[in-house]
């Protein structure tokens, strides 16, 4: 594996390998010294064009647990604000010879583009509405720890699918692992034709009791410049996951940060069915496994991309 750009590039075997490695890495966090020297001398550059606390800090912690050096580069307060293009930023930062660049941008496909401009391994930490592959991997890890193999497990992804890169990566990853995925939400928030991915679509939660796992998505208010729903209160009325809709045998997941009282009721967030804190914990070990897979071993064997004309 040279880059992690999309779940589409991973088959079931590759997902299983990363999740299995992550299981073994979990123990490092229980040691008195929570650090191993595996990636000593490697440099990981975190390049974030969008606000993020948990993803960035979990990549940072993962890299540090493996003894890599981490440089954080956020778009505010940087040359990006002075109008530098993505390509120039990458070329400039490549001069520092990073071994990996973890990149989040609001632009779909940016991570893929960047992989052609630098010899560093690229990890997509979210590109617009396209994909967020490490989120999907950590969600598979979290579910497997609770449920074992996901074959035949019914997973409902509820809410704002249209703006959600998490949904796109998770639909692919859950299906590769054998789960049955159903999307539910108001018709305005479910992309038309998404059934082509092989999932079912429901415009109400009346059959939610069939789900083994309820995966609520965040209502992305920052991406809602138009009227996607009549009001957040109306949305909550029809699609909020609350104690009444959630049964004791189901698991509740959410990629965070939660809007309490909108997609989830406070009661549901704090319920024993919620595995949201486990997802955050899984984030570090799964990202350790991804960085280890990309950066351990000799980089001398990697192809350097041909210079491209812009």
């Amino acid at each position, binding site marked *: 594996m040279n880059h992690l750009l999309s779940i589409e590039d991973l088959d079931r075997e590759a997902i299983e390998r990363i999740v299995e*490695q992550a*299981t*073994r*890495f*979990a*123990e*490092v966090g229980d*040691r*008195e*010294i929570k*650090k*191993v*020297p*595996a*990636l000593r*001398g490697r440099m990981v550059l975190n390049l974030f064009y969008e606000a993020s606390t948990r993803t960035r800090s979990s990549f940072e912690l993962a890299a540090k647990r*493996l003894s890599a050096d981490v440089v954080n580069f956020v778009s505010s307060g940087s040359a990006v604000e002075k109008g530098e293009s993505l390509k120039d930023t990458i070329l400039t930062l490549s001069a520092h010879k990073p071994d990996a660049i973890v990149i989040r941008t609001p632009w779909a496909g940016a991570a893929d583009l960047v992989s052609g401009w630098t010899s560093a391994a690229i990890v997509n930490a979210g590109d617009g509405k396209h994909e967020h592959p490490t989120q999907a991997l950590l969600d598979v890890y979290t579910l497997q720890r609770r449920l074992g193999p996901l074959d035949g497990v019914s997973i409902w992804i509820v809410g704002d699918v249209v703006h959600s890169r998490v949904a796109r990566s998770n639909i692919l990853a859950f299906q590769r692992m054998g789960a049955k995925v159903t999307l539910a939400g108001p018709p305005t928030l479910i992309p038309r034709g998404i059934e082509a991915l092989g999932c079912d679509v429901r415009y109400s939660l009346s059959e939610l009791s069939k789900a083994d796992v309820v995966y609520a998505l965040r209502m992305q208010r920052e991406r809602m410049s138009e009227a996607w729903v009549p009001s957040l209160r109306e949305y909550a009325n029809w699609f909020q996951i609350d104690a009444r809709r959630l049964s004791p045998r189901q698991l509740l997941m959410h990629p965070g940060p939660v809007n309490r009282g909108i997609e989830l009721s406070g009661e549901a967030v704090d319920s024993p069915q919620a595995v949201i804190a486990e997802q955050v914990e899984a984030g570090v070990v799964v990202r350790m496994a991804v960085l*280890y*897979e990309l*950066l*351990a*071993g*000799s980089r001398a*064997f990697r192809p350097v991309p041909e210079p491209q004309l812009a």
Partner: protein
Amino acid sequence: MTDGKIVLREDDIQRALTRIAHEVAERNAGDAKVAIVGIHRRGAVLAARLREILQRLLGTAVPLGDLDIAFYRDDVASRPEAPVVHSSHVDFDIDGRTIVIVDDVLYTGRTVRAAIEALFAYGRPQRVQLAVLADRGHRELPIRPDYVGKNLPTAREERVNVRVAEIDGVDEVGISVVPAEISA
């Protein structure tokens, strides 16, 4: 690969472990804080057996752990692929204890160096000792074993194969010659 010759069989291995257990008991007499830690994978199997014998000798419980050293290898950056990582288990407090590290074969000493470094991530042992089933020489680091099952003089192009029933279905130690083109 077939072995040119078998140098230790099941009962030889059992006797070697029994002798090592006696030596551990003797060297650490009066020290109630001995613990055994095996190196993945066959060292961990041998460590579990050594611990059984030692517990019978001492009449007390001896803590057992295992270490995976993939993270601590000195060749992580030069191998083409990332080494496979297994879980480590050190579920007891190692501070102030005598830790006996157990491995199947002692060769360059690089694995043992990595194991010592890995061990110190769990705390500060009082002392660390090394037990190996076979010492084949060719050390590249200043490391020497405290307990040796058998000294096996070997050439570099030879390979020492330790097999244990728990993993390989049979207990034996063999020496084979690796053809020059694949020994690197």
